């Protein structure tokens, strides 16, 4: 990853404009879901060495939530899309 991130709305912007929220996790479980499902959702992480999809917030720009596909070994970003284009499916 360079110090620039390509926002789909604003173009190349400095990394300091973004707030990072981490792994695009499994969909939020329903309130009544099993304890194990909630534990998994809240605490466990895939944390892969390689391709990683994560939420970035363009807090110092258009304020849209983005999803980056980034390689955690090389810091290279292959794709940046607006989070609203993502289909996450319903809660478990």
């Amino acid at each position, binding site marked *: 990853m360079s110090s620039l991130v390509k926002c789909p709305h604003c173009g190349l912007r400095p990394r300091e404009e973004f707030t990072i929220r981490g792994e695009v996790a499994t969909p939020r479980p329903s309130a009544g879901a099993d304890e194990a499902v909630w534990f998994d959702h809240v605490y466990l992480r895939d*944390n892969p060495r390689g391709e990683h999809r994560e939420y970035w917030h363009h807090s110092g720009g258009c304020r849209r939530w983005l999803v980056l596909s980034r390689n*955690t070994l090389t810091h290279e970003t292959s794709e940046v899309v607006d989070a609203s284009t993502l289909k996450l499916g319903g809660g478990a």
Partner: protein
Amino acid sequence: MRYSALSLLGNAFSENKNWKPAWRNPDPKPHYDVIIIGGGGHGLATAYYLSKVFGMRNVAVLEKGYLGSGNIGRNTTIIRSNYLLEGNNPFYEFSMKLWEGLEQDFNFNAMVSQRGVVNLFHSDAQRDAYTRRGNAMRLHGVDAELLGRDQLREKLPFLDYENARFPIMGGLMQARGGTVRHDAVAWGFARGADQNGVDIIQNCEVTGIDREGDQITGVQTTRGAITCNKLAMAVAGSSSHVAKMVDMRLPIESHALQAFVSEGLKPFIDTVVTFGAGHFYVSQSDKGGLVFGGDIEGYNSYAQRGNLACVEYVAEAGMAMIPALSRVRILRSWGGIMDMSMDGSPIMDRTHLSNLYFNGGWCYGGFKATPASGYCFAHLLATDTPHETATAFRMDRFARGYLLDEKGVGAQANLH
């Protein structure tokens, strides 16, 4: 060979031609009682205490690179035991006591220097929090002293006490805290373990873990297959990666943390100082360079380097604390990979597999824990019960709701 004044003299008079390597470089045997994955500080310390205190000699440490290439060679060398919580403080104090006797114990000069650690505070709320922390430390028998602004001014005159946003009101000092030469810690433990018969195998990456049912039978490595009775993971930074080999998901994210060294300066900081407002910490090495660091990068990374945004942030925080730093040149920066656990505390426990043991999740505080981590992990490996100071580091504490939340930053590793 034991190092002593006599051995120094003898070697000096024989023109330093007869020094022996500090540890052997053996080929892996087909079987070991215990295999420790990870030849970093914690892995080597585990092997050392396992062989010395618990008498297990048929032990191997597998290191994918060379000794000192991981986090043990990538930190800011600070040791302290200024912890607040019941589950943490006795452990880190145990570690501090081991540091205090370490060099005599393993007969190696690790340059343990108890120069003191001062945590600055900048508001009434922070002063109250540090007062409470200091009291908790004293209740555990750990030294702590709350210094007022005037006392600090005498001791550390170069700080910016009138900082507009974060005026320095005082600091919490632990006089027994300080620094240790980090590489020498790895070398000393490696030499000690080696002398007890432990095989330290470098350039040997574990590529797979063999199992039958819930039993580990051995590991596949870049230097062939090795079988074992017990397998121990001490690979902080790569914990999730290695755990994946046995289909284990962890409450851990990997983040890069950078550290920096400036050009050599005349001595002017004789303690470790941390800037409570900006997460900046600095000490001066015996060679004269300032050693300092700041926050983690904030996004998952396995690359042992950081980005410029963080370099700028750390430099700004340093300037806010010590304006005189503006003319100082940074010589080097480097990054290590931190196991950021979800409550900011380590995990040391048995796992869902009967003979696999896990040690990781040290966040950015693993260096100071090195001796106690090794001792307690060796205790767990040898006796199958946790050491009395490490009972709070259980794997299932997240599921059971017993988080060890020292800093109150919650479950988000990226909010640390």
